[in-house]
């Protein structure tokens, strides 16, 4: 009985719904912010800054969903061994592909052979 309660012991038995709705509010605000960075006339800081804000906001939203909706705030230490390696490997894979496809600019028009450039 105590073992079964242990999993939820550190979570408030009180109002989890209120936490969820607070996170929902934060997610909506963040979505609105990222949408505004591309809306005409609302974003004065330039495109690069806009793109950076948009990606940072996306990471924040993902972290909120993972921590609260997926319960990782309480389960992280039981699960990180399965979550961190795929994230590292995914990032490494992109880094490994970049020199071949992103940085080989001397073959710029290689895919327009029929234009003879």
């Amino acid at each position: 009985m105590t073992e079964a309660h242990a999993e939820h012991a550190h979570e408030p038995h009180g109002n989890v719904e209120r936490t969820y709705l607070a996170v929902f509010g934060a997610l909506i605000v963040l979505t609105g912010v990222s949408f505004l960075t591309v809306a005409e006339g609302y974003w004065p800081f330039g495109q690069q800054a806009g793109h950076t804000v948009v990606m940072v906001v996306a990471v924040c939203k993902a972290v909120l969903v993972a921590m609260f909706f997926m319960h990782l705030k309480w389960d992280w230490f039981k699960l990180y061994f399965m979550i961190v390696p795929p994230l590292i490997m995914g990032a490494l894979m992109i880094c490994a592909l970049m020199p071949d496809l992103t940085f080989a600019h001397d073959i710029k028009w290689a895919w327009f052979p029929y234009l003879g450039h």
Partner: protein
Amino acid sequence: MTTHAATIDAPPQHMGLPLSNGKLAMWLFLATEIMFFSGLIGAYIVLRFGSPVWPRPHDMLVEEFLGAINTFFLICSSVSVVLAHAALLRRKIGLAVLYITITLALGGVFLLIKAHEYTHKWEHGIFPGGIFESPDLALKKAIADYRSSLSLADQKTDPDLAAATALAERFALQEFKSIQAQLEAYNKLGEDLAKRHGHDHDHAGHGHDAPGLHLPPVHPNGNLWASLYFTITGFHALHVVGGMVMFAIMLIRAGLGLFTIESVAFVEYAGLYWHFVDIVWIFLFPLIYLVG
């Protein structure tokens, strides 16, 4: 009548990890899904930033507003599934079924909006292999199609055909030093033709009933964009369908009276999957709609 605690017990634990089997299994699956989507999203990042030119979202009929609405609906569905779980923990089965129904409905709305986006693109020739990537070939095709729709007498006198043929000859003589210059001349011709006939150049793709020569839009790397777009969002949509199947099963079981407090585990694990699908969309939305 025995008194119940306010919340029910967690699923039974076992030796080893302090996790239930189902939770461990679902997270293991989600780890593989992280690899799956990082492959697809990584391909987009690598190919897009390796391309000297890339179509803008508006060129490919990507509307940020629809993406934002879809994000909103998916976030709402994540909230509703987690509220269903909370309701089951409080032994409120009817409320949980209601929340699951809301989740399923919101997933359906997401798919409907996606379907509208897809068909809108297909109608305008935006699909892998359907986009013209070089101005001279697009111009040749437009001239050939238009010529075949005119009578022999009209072919000699039509001003649109004359203007287009003149530009095609300049292309053939390699008068332009770069593809950008060719594109500019091509787009300018398209605008002139549109102005002459009084319609919007952006919709040059369809408008077969309108008079005059229509130049299809030319977007270098458009087909690469289309391949990536339909593959990535298509796989995401398939994952949404998979999640909806799980929620449909829950509702069918509820109809058969099999959805009980013990179903809290099923709801929790399906919810984990659904939140992951939401997280993938949280990254897809800025990448495709906002950053482009």
